[in-house]
């Protein structure tokens, strides 16, 4: 298609050629072209085939309202060719075709349209029902648009988090005026526009306003906006969601020089001005989907913005003055207009009519398109008089069809604005808006430039006032001005041509015709929400883009109701289709590393994410970790336990806080001793355990489980919020690294590290000391025993921890030291019957149910969280209990989570492992209380065992060293 001569309205840069590939051919377009306009310029007018009948589809609109231009671009399917700016080297493919878009072999499906009525798959393939899965799979394989391409390469998808006083959505005249007015009041403004340039409906129009064409006026406004440092303009940015407190989300498509393909925006604004203008409603008539049929602004913009005359001889069937204006505009560019039909009998703008007359364009009032002729491209139009029924036939290669403008209310609906049907305008308008949300421009029913701009200015001022500026007097002036501007525009509510039925499409995406909608209605699906689900109208990629506008009108006419009586379909985010990659954005993998991360990585640690931490799970590919476990039992091992929560609690009321939160009596903590203590929640469920130490007067140091570290400070504050106690808490989790040295040789290794007396007498089990290690490194030494062997826990300032680890490994060599990781620790603690909170516990079981009631000090006089629940449930029948078990066959180790069956499901295995030292498969299980007796049997079901079970016997933990002698050596 030959480009028109250079004009002031065009947005392409003819000096910048961009090469691309389509159908194996190297082609070129210009910077500023979209993929669709570049293809059109190269003579390709059919971009895809329709979803169901494989009908040819071309450029119908330019703002993504139909799926006709979905293509595979750079291996990404379902990209909107009409909204995607051309980039150098793009690889473009048609989709949903077998062959080429011009000669699609699957087009023969259209010949069976009569056999494929709405809901055919519900009716035809469910009887007998056993056949449904067969058909379901095949139908699903046929359904869907586009396919994933393994050649797709990841690209940069970015994020941006923005804050503003006022966010203006829409960069047309109203949005630009609003942004300027708000900025002049001294507030920060963000302006979003879905198109790659500002100007909205002024951008391409040549109609004169205040002595200059509208496109020039839009450039003036845009220049003024750009000169304001307090206005941030984001182009090619479409709103996705509008949430509470004016939290907006949007996606921005990257320009040629941007480092990202798309980016996801989160915007927080005090006030929002929505000025998204209108969408053009398609006219419904027979073959209204043929390539060569398009809405008025599409035809005019192709010519004015991209210098592409979409046809030489055109027929117009329009419903408003913008249609007349477009016809004039295209006529000025050399298009022959055979006929201009207007569904309105009266009310046309007299000035426009006069201009049309001077150009010899015949205007047919009360006449609409009834049928398009031609196959792969429109070749003629049949017009019908609404009054007489007389038919006129014209040859043409462009049919411009429009049922008028409808406000783009999506953002306001998401913002929970209330809508009301305006009989005069023939569409829904916002009747009440949430606080801090304003609307302006064509979307509130205004059409004249002055009214549009004034409404924008007024909205901008009100938004600024909402943010605190003193704008009252200017608001009064603008309100008065707007009231004086009467809008005489006469709109039409005409949508469907007489006789439109089969092949008259309401929804282009899903190939839903008027006949489909009406048959659905007759079957009882007589509301928009029901009908769209039955017919799938509006359920396709454009999500109600075109279908959503016309479906209510078609239904109301069929049901004999007023247009306002049938509400449009509900709108939900995303308002514009967004790639999952865009939502993911940079998707940074941010996690916590312990101070020993690098050292353990060098030692061959195999890491896993454990909550927010990355920790080594194994130190070899033997995932039973038998060697790591054996070495702890026989020599000495060391494990990184830096992730344990560590806290300082101090202040005059620190003990009161401990007493309230811990279930034991914390007043009994002895200096130099660590007290094992547990916290339960209000239901008596164990939520945390650790050790508590008294470091000085009103000064405590305590540890928590890894999982609870982040919540502990809040847990203390929450449960003491009404107490007015004076205590403070400092999270020291990251301040100290922690190493657990365990095994019969652990003391000997530690002796190489310190001159302090660490004998059993000086540091007995559950004692702690402040000591100094080699090189003067300070350490807090705790004698604890989670893994069942003599053990020392060293808490060392994090920056020193790696040095201590390296020294221990070096000095411990003669004693057989080696690191062990989480899985080995899991086996070792299981041998001792120690629980891990969240693995062996759950919210249904209390401290007593776990057999840990010994931690609860019943003589404590203070009010402690969870005690009432513990008392109430202590002897409650029917509670789950935690028990230990051994399987009868040692080689059968049930998986964690395996269910325990006795006619019914009676419990589940919480954790189970094979213990080499015991030569047995052991585990813990939560079972119904009635089963929890020592010596009782368990039948454990393991997936894949069919009707067989693993049999086990309930035994009393600990399984290993039940007297605890090895801990106290």
């Amino acid at each position, binding site marked *: 298609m030959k480009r028109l001569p250079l004009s002031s309205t065009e947005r392409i840069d003819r000096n910048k050629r961009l090469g691309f590939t389509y159908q194996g051919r190297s082609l070129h377009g210009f910077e500023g072209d979209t993929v669709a306009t570049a293809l059109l310029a190269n003579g390709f007018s059919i971009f895809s085939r329709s979803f169901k009948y494989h009908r040819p589809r071309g450029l119908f609109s330019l703002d993504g309202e139909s799926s006709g231009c979905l293509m595979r671009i750079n291996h990404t399917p379902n990209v909107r060719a009409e909204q995607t700016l051309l980039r150098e080297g793009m690889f473009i493919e048609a989709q949903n075709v077998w062959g080429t878009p011009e000669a699609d072999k699957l087009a023969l499906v259209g010949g069976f349209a009569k056999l494929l009525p709405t809901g055919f798959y519900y009716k035809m393939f469910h009887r007998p029902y056993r056949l449904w899965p067969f058909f379901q799979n095949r139908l699903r394989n046929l359904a869907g648009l586009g396919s994933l391409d393994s050649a797709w390469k990841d690209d940069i998808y970015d994020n*941006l988090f923005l804050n503003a006083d006022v966010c203006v959505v829409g960069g047309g005249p109203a949005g630009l005026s609003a942004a300027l007015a708000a900025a002049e009041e001294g507030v920060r403004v963000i302006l979003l526009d879905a198109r790659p340039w500002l100007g909205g409906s002024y951008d391409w129009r040549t109609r004169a306003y205040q002595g200059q064409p509208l496109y020039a006026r839009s450039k003036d406004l845009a220049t003024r906006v750009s000169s304001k440092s307090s206005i941030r303009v984001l182009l090619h940015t479409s709103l996705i969601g509008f949430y509470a407190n004016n939290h907006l989300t949007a996606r921005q498509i990257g320009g040629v020089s941007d480092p990202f393909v798309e980016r996801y925006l989160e915007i927080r604004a005090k006030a929002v001005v929505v000025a998204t203008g209108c969408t053009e409603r398609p006219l419904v008539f027979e073959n209204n989907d043929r390539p060569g049929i398009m809405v008025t602004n599409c035809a005019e913009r192709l010519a004015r913005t991209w210098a592409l005359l979409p046809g030489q001889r055109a027929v117009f069937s329009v419903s408003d003055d913008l249609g007349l204006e477009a016809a004039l505009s295209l006529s000025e560019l050399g298009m022959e207009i055979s006929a201009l039909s207007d569904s309105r009998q009266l009310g046309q703008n007299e000035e426009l009519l006069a201009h049309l007359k001077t150009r010899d364009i015949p205007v047919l009032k009360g006449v609409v398109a009834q049928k398009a002729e031609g196959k792969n491209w429109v070749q003629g139009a049949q017009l019908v008089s609404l009054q007489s029924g007389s038919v006129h036939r014209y040859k043409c290669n462009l049919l411009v069809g429009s049922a008028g403008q409808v406000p783009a209310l999506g953002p306001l609906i998401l913002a929970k604005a209330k809508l009301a049907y305006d009989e005069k305008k023939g569409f829904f308008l916002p009747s009440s808006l949430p606080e801090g949300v304003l609307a302006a421009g064509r979307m509130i029913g205004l059409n004249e430039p002055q009214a549009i701009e004034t409404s924008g200015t007024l909205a901008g001022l009100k938004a600024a006032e909402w943010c605190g500026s003193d704008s009252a007097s200017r608001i009064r002036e603008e309100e008065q001005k707007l009231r004086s501007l009467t809008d005489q525009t006469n709109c039409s509510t005409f949508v469907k041509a007489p006789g439109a039925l089969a092949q008259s499409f309401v929804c282009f995406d899903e190939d839903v015709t008027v006949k489909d909608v009406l048959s659905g209605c007759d079957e009882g699906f007589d509301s928009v929400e029901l009908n769209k689900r039955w017919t799938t109208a509006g359920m396709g990629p454009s999500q109600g883009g075109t279908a959503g506008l016309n479906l209510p009108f078609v239904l109301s006419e069929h049901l004999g109701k007023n247009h306002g009586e049938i509400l449009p379909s509900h709108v939900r985010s995303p308002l514009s289709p967004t790639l999952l990659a865009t939502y993911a954005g940079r998707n*940074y993998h941010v996690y916590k590393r312990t101070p020993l991360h690098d050292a353990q990585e060098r030692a061959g640690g195999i890491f896993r994410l454990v909550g927010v931490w990355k920790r080594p799970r194994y130190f070899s590919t033997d995932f039973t970790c038998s060697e790591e476990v054996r070495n702890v039992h026989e020599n000495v091992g060391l494990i990184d336990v830096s992730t344990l929560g560590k806290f300082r609690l*101090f202040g005059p009321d620190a003990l009161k806080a401990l007493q309230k939160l811990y279930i034991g009596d914390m007043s009994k903590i002895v200096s130099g001793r660590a007290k094992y203590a547990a916290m339960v929640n209000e239901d008596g469920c164990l939520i945390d355990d650790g050790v508590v130490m008294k470091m000085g007067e009103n000064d405590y140091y305590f540890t928590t489980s890894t999982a609870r570290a982040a919540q502990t400070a809040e847990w203390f504050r929450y449960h003491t919020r009404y107490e007015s106690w004076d205590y403070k808490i400092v999270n020291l989790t990251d301040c100290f690294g922690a190493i657990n040295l365990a095994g019969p040789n652990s003391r000997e290794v530690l002796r190489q590290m310190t001159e302090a007396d660490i004998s059993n007498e000086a540091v007995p089990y559950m004692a702690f000391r402040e000591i100094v290690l080699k090189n003067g*490194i300070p350490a807090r030494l705790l004698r604890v025993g989670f893994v069942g062997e003599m053990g020392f826990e060293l808490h060392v300032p994090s920056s020193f921890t790696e040095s201590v680890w390296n020294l221990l490994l070096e000095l411990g060599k003669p004693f057989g030291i080696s690191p062990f990781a989480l899985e080995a620790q899991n086996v070792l603690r299981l041998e001792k019957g120690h629980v891990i909170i969240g693995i062996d516990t759950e919210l249904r079981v209390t401290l007593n149910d776990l057999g840990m009631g010994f931690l609860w000090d019943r003589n404590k006089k203070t009010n402690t969280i969870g005690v009432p629940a513990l008392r109430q449930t202590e002897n409650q029948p029917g509670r789950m209990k935690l028990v230990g078990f051994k399987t009868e066959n040692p080689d059968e180790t049930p998986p964690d989570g395996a269910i325990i069956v006795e006619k019914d499901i009676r419990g589940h295995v919480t954790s189970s492992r094979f213990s080499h030292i015991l030569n047995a498969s052991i585990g813990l299980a939560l079972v119904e209380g009635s089963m929890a007796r020592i010596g009782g049997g368990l039948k454990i079901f393991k997936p894949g065992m069919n009707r067989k079970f693993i049999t086990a016997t309930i035994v009393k933990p600990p399984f290993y060293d039940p007297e605890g002698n090895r801990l106290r050596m």
Partner: protein
Amino acid sequence: MTANRHSPIQCQDKPVESEFQNGFEVILTYTNENRDSALIDLSHRSKWDVQSSSLEAIGPDILKIPSEPGDCIYQNGLLVNRLNKTQLNIWNLNSEGPTFPNWFFLTEITDGQALVALVGTSALSIFEKVSGLDLKGPSRKEMFVLQGPVVHVPMQVAYLSQSFLLLGFSRGYGQSAEEALLDAGAEYGLQPGGERIFRHWLAKLF
């Protein structure tokens, strides 16, 4: 001499010059550093948490206390951030700085926090790629501290100027947060910077 203390952040870029400070090897200059867009590891700098129900009683002879939560004061090489009614956070921005007595209300948290400086003319542009915190609000003071998520990590953000931000956060996140920040700032030429760049920007400001 070998360092026996380790920063939570290890940069891939090659160091040119370093020195030992308090047991840490501190990189003064990197090979590819960019003075106008740099991320500088200051995790080795001393830091303290101060909590007291009567913070005002501490000063002013010992320490000037910022009057409102969110305020910062720079004094004698120390940046004092008021986090809330009862809590302060102190960062020593000088390589040599004061040591405090063993006050009950004070807890040394040097090893608990990673601290990085984001400096350069693009600092705010980079920041808005990784955080929704509003650093540009018209009501903001000349210097201030905010608390909130940056690259999804809870951080304390001290705004010293539009080209100079300090980010303090849990040490464990140090390495991955640094990598995320460098990635976000790549389009602005953000590079790991040595401490000389930090000193340069600090001297420009104070």
